């Protein structure tokens, strides 16, 4: 640890930041354990899912995205995409684990889940499938990582292939967790499973641009050419993903407005002009999509630095995209006069403890990754 800190002065700052983040998270966790969920979370009877669920979604989407993009390399054989495989899979494992950690903090009885999901499984429950598929996915990711580290390409390919299938199943099923709820018109339908896969690609692409930029910049002497070329290709690909995402976002909105479908319309309006409007227009649209697309489409800004910035902004925007999606689906009251409505809608804002746990989870994820980066031989040898 000390050795790492001595490594570079910027590391010290990085680790201190993450340290603070993790301490904040730990305080949040202790707070929950001492006082109980009901007292420290702002989720309610009407809005039972809050920022912890949306952060969980964000983290597992990131994991899936990393897996999918990296599979372009060692599963689909696109050589350009091979060199960051270990890092991507490692980060996929860590984001998944931290996602699990976040949802465990939201679940009141994660241990009961471990027991009763096995002895009393309900196969019609998307959450049961979510647990099972992500569990399987985690095992496969670990296997893939092991083979990659050992340089066993065949094994890595097999695991990667299976991991890819698991990722797609698990992740589209995560969309179905929301999409199967007929009671929630904003979520209901086959849209979300499809959208989740697509947005995973955007997430994955964005995070990989960060990974590659920050870990291969100095090792430029190893692959100056490949590095620049890769970032250019990734940038173009990411532009395509983002444009498809924009298309998805537009087609999420139009049916929400057209003919004013009950409840769906109110939720859509909450996103466009209501309590989530700032999140939507500023974070999702501007930061998450428009600026990155502009950076990526312009040849002059599609430099490694530009692609990195686009990725950073997209990742940020996507975090809010998850939050808005989870919250918007619950803002419309199931009952007239059920609670104190603000402007006809229910109200949710995360509590400090919820935010602390989110900060902690993301810090922990980055910390573990940075630590691994220093401790494990992740650098790719030339084939």
């Amino acid at each position, binding site marked *: 640890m000390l050795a790492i800190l001595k490594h570079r002065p910027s590391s010290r700052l990085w680790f201190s930041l993450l340290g603070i983040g993790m301490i904040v998270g730990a305080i949040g966790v202790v707070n929950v354990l001492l006082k109980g969920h009901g007292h420290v979370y702002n989720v309610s009877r009407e809005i*039972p899912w809050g920022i912890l669920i949306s952060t969980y979604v964000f983290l597992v989407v990131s994991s899936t995205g990393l897996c999918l993009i990296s599979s372009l390399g060692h599963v689909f054989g696109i050589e350009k995409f091979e060199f960051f495989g270990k890092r991507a899979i490692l980060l996929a494992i860590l984001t998944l684990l931290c996602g699990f950690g976040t949802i465990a903090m939201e679940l*009141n009885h994660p241990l009961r889940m471990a027991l009763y999901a096995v002895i009393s499984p309900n196969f019609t*429950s998307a959450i049961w499938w979510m647990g099972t598929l992500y569990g399987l996915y985690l095992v496969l990711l670990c296997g893939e990582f092991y083979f990659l580290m050992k340089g066993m390409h065949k094994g890595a390919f097999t695991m990667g292939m299976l991991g890819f299938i698991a990722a797609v199943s698990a992740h589209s099923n995560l969309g179905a967790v929301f999409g199967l709820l007929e009671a929630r018109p904003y979520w209901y339908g086959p849209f979300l499973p499809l959208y989740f896969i697509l947005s995973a690609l955007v997430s994955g692409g964005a995070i990989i641009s960060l990974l590659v930029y920050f870990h291969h910049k100095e090792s430029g002497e190893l692959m100056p050419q490949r590095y620049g070329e890769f970032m250019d290709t990734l940038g173009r690909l990411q532009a395509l993903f983002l444009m498809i995402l924009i298309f998805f976002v537009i087609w999420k909105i139009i049916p929400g407005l057209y003919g004013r479908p009950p409840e769906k319309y109110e939720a859509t309006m909450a996103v466009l002009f209501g309590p989530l409007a700032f999140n939507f227009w500023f974070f999702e649209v501007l930061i998450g999509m428009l600026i990155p697309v502009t950076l990526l489409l312009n040849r002059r800004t599609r430099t490694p630095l530009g692609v990195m910035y686009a990725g950073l902004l997209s990742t940020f925007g996507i975090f809010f995209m998850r939050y808005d999606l989870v919250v918007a689906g619950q803002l419309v009251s199931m*009952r007239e006069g059920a609670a104190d409505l603000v402007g006809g809608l229910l109200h949710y804002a995360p509590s400090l403890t919820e935010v602390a746990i989110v900060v902690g989870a993301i810090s922990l994820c980055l910390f573990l990754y940075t630590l691994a980066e220093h401790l494990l031989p992740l650098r790719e040898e030339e084939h």
Partner: protein
Amino acid sequence: MKNKRLAIVLDTRRCIDCKACTVACKAENRVPLGRNNYRNWVDEEALRGAYPNLGQSFTPSQCQHCANPPCAHVCPTHATEVNPDGIVHVVDKKCIGCKYCQTACPYNARYYNEEIGAVDKCTFCAHRVYEGRLPACVETCPTKVRVFGDINDPNSEVSRLLAKYPSRVLKPAQGTKPHLFYLI
């Protein structure tokens, strides 16, 4: 109880929104204190018209004990069970607290009970019903809005009311087949 289908018929014309049902239920079922904690409720519907021509309805409600309960479908651990007589209830020890059932229930009938550590909801006071007593809300209701009984029995008061008057259920389009019937 076999060969029975328990249901509640509500005559909301008689409801004065006095909340006796809510307090009776809280006391009977040890529902924790707190405004968000309740198994049944009375909704004040939006005021109709404008001053001085106003109208307002009150809709008492609770778990609908659906024949096609989405809460039971989504529960990952089968913590939500359905009895042969139609009573939908939660097995506390199996509840993992994922609150999926809360998001799945179109009636907002469920809440997380911190004291028992599980999602909680109306059970038609099964513990009373199986002793031959009425659910607490039905028994206490000052204006006798709620009538409880077996709709499989054509001679029961609920069957008689349903035969005599048109009725509706809440959110029929959800396909949940609720068993709270509101007389029109």
